Each structure stands twice: as C-alpha cells, then as structure tokens.
C-alpha cells in the first residue's frame, strides 16, 4: 500500500470507477496513460449527468429558468477555473475546444494581426505538434522566422542558447511548461521574465503542467496560457485560453458567428465583450460544468499534494525502470520531472511493448507522442511512455516492471 501524508490514495482511487474495470477477464486495468488523457472521477461524471438531467438549455439570451441556470453554471465554471490558476478577472478566461485550439487562437488572432515579415518567434525542440504546426503555418504565410531552444541530452532546455536567441529581439516566446515525453518541468518563470526583458510576448502550453502542478498565473506572469480539461480529470472537448486583458482586448476575433458579436448588420458587425468575443457559437456547456467540477475536485485534494505525490511516484518508477537491463529512460532526473517516463527497450519496438503490456491490463502509449522533432533530436523513431497521475500507486509501477520483464522473455531480449 502507498502512504502519503496528504493524499488518501484509497479514497482517491474509489472516486474513479473506471479503475475497477477488468480489461480482460481477471485482469484489472492499470492505467498509465494519463498524459494522453486522464480518467474522470464520479464527481465530474455526476456533475455532467446532473446538468443534462436537470438543467440543459442554451446559455445567454435565454430568459427561461433552465437557460438562466445553464448560464449560471457555465459562467460559474469559468469563475472556478479562473480561481484555480489565480486569475483575477474571469473575463480573461476563454473557453476553447482544447489546448490546440487555444494556441491556434493566439496564432491566428494575435500572431496574424501583430506579426510582420521577418519577425522572430522562439519555440523549443520539445514542443508538442500543437505548439509547432500553428506557428509553422503562420510563418509560411507571413515569412516569419522560427528559432528553437535546444534540448540537451539531459532533457533540459539550453538556457544559455536561449539567452543568445533573445538578442535577436523575438516578438513571441512560446513553450511548454512540461514536456509530454521527457516529463521535463521547464523553468517557466525564468523563461518568461527573460522574454519580457527582451520585449517579447509569452505563450505557455500548460496542457501537461496545469493538471499536475500548482500554477499561479500572477506569479508566472505568462501573457497567454493554454490548457485542456481532459488531462485534468475533466471531459474532452473543452479547454482554456487565458490571456492578459490588454492583449485580448487588442486582438481581433478568431472565429465568427453567434455570441461573439454585439451588433450585426448585413455588411458589418461589432464584437462582443471579453470573453465572449472569442467564443463563437454554442459552446460545450455540459463540458464546462464538468471542467468546473474537475477543478473543484483537484482543489479539494490540493495541487501541491498532488504534485508531491506524483513526484514520489515518478521517482519510484525511474528507480524501478532503470533497474531493468536493456531499458533506456529519457529525460531529466526526478527533481526536474513531472509524472512521465519515456523509454525504449533494446530489440523491441515500442508498439510491441505497448501491445504486450496490454495483455496484462497495463495501458501505456507508444509512438512519437505528437513530438516528432523531439524524437528526431534523440534519433528515435518512437518511444514507450508510461505516465502517472494522482490515482496511480506504486504497486502499479511494480506491475509495469514485472510486465516489461515478460516482454523481454517473449522477445528473448
């Protein structure tokens, strides 16, 4: 049994009904793929179920009871999420579909409007495709210059080289706070303050960090922050873009349609106030309610406790995985890492590893994890990735290790 002073793992696990599931007869699920998407606690499932059973209506403008309740629930969720990341004004919290859409919003609205030919955007070699491709698309169109902060063999960003790039006067520095492959937790505060000194705007991809770390936006001072509900115990289909008010006010709308307008004439329109200016069309209302419930759930346990517990888990996982002959771990030491372990096995392709582990009910991910450039950097076509969240326990890591030995047996590796 795991023991952690601040987190009652037995109680946490009981909140996640899916953990009782047998993947095949007699084989209970060991879910080590939370970096792809987390499982959902009953609190979230019930909140969404309740919403559809009792409240469902379209929000804003409606005058009947259900519409008012739905609007209150939707806007209430926005408030909760704002508080969760330390945002003072909820009007700077925009609901999107996911992290990817949040980043695209910044690129297409802020980037398209404010960047000119030859302007420099700094990214990193460890970005998820969602923080690469949108910039590449705009760079192609507007002839922007893209430069990348290198990743060292140790899985850490080369901050010295970054300082050199800053001399080139970038307009934007966009980076992930936590790598979805290496697990590296980047020194976001330092990266941001250096970028600000150089006069650049900053965008933080928080898809992995917000679910796992305690993040305070005031302290971080990021200009934009993007994250998704589904990786933090909430539903799929909803994410957030936080932006500093002055930036969001200055930006043109992203998608056009209902809700984002104040007035529409046949040939012209005026935009709505924040945050509605960036929320065209009927949003994911039930999902917002679920997102709010997820944030309540995480807050009730305490993000600091969750981070500490995951830290203990990943340290243990690294220790156990490193013991296995022929298994190679990538990324930084446990102190600089979130709950992710990417590894390769001698003579066994990651897909085969994942497939054989599935026999034992263990869910991990194999492939490039939407970070092909990072894999190219390490000369790897693919890796296997096991990731850990608040509901995992050491015993499951033991099962993972045991199953990896079975993979070795099968392949005679």
């Amino acid at each position, binding site marked *: 049994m795991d023991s952690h002073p601040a987190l009652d793992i037995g109680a946490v696990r009981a909140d996640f009904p899916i953990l009782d599931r047998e993947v*095949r007869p007699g084989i209970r699920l060991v879910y080590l793929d939370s970096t792809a998407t987390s499982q959902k606690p009953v609190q979230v499932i019930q909140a969404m179920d309740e919403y559809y059973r009792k409240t469902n209506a379209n929000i804003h403008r409606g005058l009947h009871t259900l519409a008012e309740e739905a609007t209150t629930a939707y806007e209430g969720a926005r408030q909760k999420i704002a508080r969760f990341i330390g945002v003072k004004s909820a009007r700077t919290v925009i609901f999107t579909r996911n992290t990817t859409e949040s980043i695209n919003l910044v690129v297409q609205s802020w980037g398209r409007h404010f960047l000119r030919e030859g302007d420099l955007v700094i990214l990193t070699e460890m970005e998820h495709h969602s923080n690469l491709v949108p910039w590449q698309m705009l760079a192609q169109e507007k002839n922007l210059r893209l430069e990348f902060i290198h990743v060292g063999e140790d899985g850490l960003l080369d901050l010295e080289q970054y300082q050199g790039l800053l001399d080139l006067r970038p307009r934007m520095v966009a980076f992930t706070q936590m790598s979805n492959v290496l697990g590296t937790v980047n020194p976001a505060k330092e990266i941001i303050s250096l970028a600000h000194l150089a006069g650049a705007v900053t965008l933080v991809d928080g898809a992995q960090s917000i679910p796992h770390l305690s993040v305070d936006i005031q302290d971080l001072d990021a200009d934009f922050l993007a994250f998704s509900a589904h990786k933090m115990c909430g539903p799929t289909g909803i994410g957030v873009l936080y932006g500093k008010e002055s930036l969001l006010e200055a930006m043109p709308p992203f998608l056009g349609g209902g809700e984002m307008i104040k007035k529409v004439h046949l040939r012209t329109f005026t935009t709505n106030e924040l945050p509605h200016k960036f929320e065209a069309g009927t949003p994911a209302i039930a999902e917002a309610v679920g997102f709010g419930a997820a944030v309540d759930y995480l807050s009730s346990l305490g993000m600091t406790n969750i981070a500490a517990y995951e830290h203990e888990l990943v340290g243990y996982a690294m220790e156990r995985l490193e013991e296995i002959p022929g298994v190679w771990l990538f990324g930084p030491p446990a102190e600089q890492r979130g709950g992710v372990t990417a590894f390769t096995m001698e*003579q*066994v*392709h*990651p*897909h*085969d590893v994942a*497939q*054989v582990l*599935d*026999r034992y009910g263990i869910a991990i991910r*194999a*492939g*490039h994890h939407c970070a*092909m450039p990072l*894999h190219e950097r390490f000369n*790897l*076509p*693919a890796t296997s990735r096991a990731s850990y969240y608040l509901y995992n326990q050491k015993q499951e890591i033991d099962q993972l290790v045991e199953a990896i030995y079975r993979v070795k047996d*099968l*392949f*005679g590796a």
Partner: protein
Amino acid sequence: MDDLYREVIIERYKNPIYRGELNPNDITFEDENPLCGDQIRIDVRVDPDNRVTEAAFNGHGCAISQASADLLLESIVGKTIDEVKSLTKQDVLDLLGIDLGPVRLKCALLPLKVLKAGAYGMSQASDDLVEE
C-alpha cells in the same frame, strides 16, 4: 490477442531471411507509417518474364511490420509482377495467421503497400492499394 506474437512472427522479426538491399534492382520503393515511425524499403529484381527472382527489405519498425515484410517477400519470389499487383490485405493476414485491430493492421499492411506502390510504379503509396 495472445496469438498476436506467434512464434513465427517473433522469429521472423529477430532473424529475418529477406532483410537487405538489392543494388541494382528493377523495382524499389520506400514508405513509412508516421503514426509509429515504422519505415520500410523494398527492392525487387525480376527476370525477362517479369517474374520476381529476388526481393529484399530494409528499415525499422515493430515485430508485426517487419515479420509481415519478411513473410510477404518470401511469398512473392517466383510470382509475376501482375500477381504481385493483385495481392490483397487478406493475403498478408493469411501469411501472418493473426487477427489485428485497426492500429496494428496499418503496421502489418505497410510492406504490402510499399511493394504494390513499387510494382505499379507509383510516385506515392496510397492506402487504396491495401484496402479491399
């Protein structure tokens, strides 16, 4: 599922018979499955009657894709290019002797896709080549 890693598949993966390169060759083609990073190149030599005399594959990937390539090339030696063109998904599954889910099916069919694209002299491989 437990049959997925049949002995023949592990054996062919670890000790392939047709791994290598043929230079010069009459047909060569290369493609990859970006999803998992599997990559395969196939070289083929034919005689004046357009019959395959030699075949070889190179690249990297999972056990399923590599074993599939090895078994596939073994099966085409002596066949005409027209016969190669008419090979189907089912032929590959019969060679492997396993049932595959949608994700792994792509691994298993990559060698056939590469082979047929080469046989047809296409500039780009298409999934249509391996769908029934």
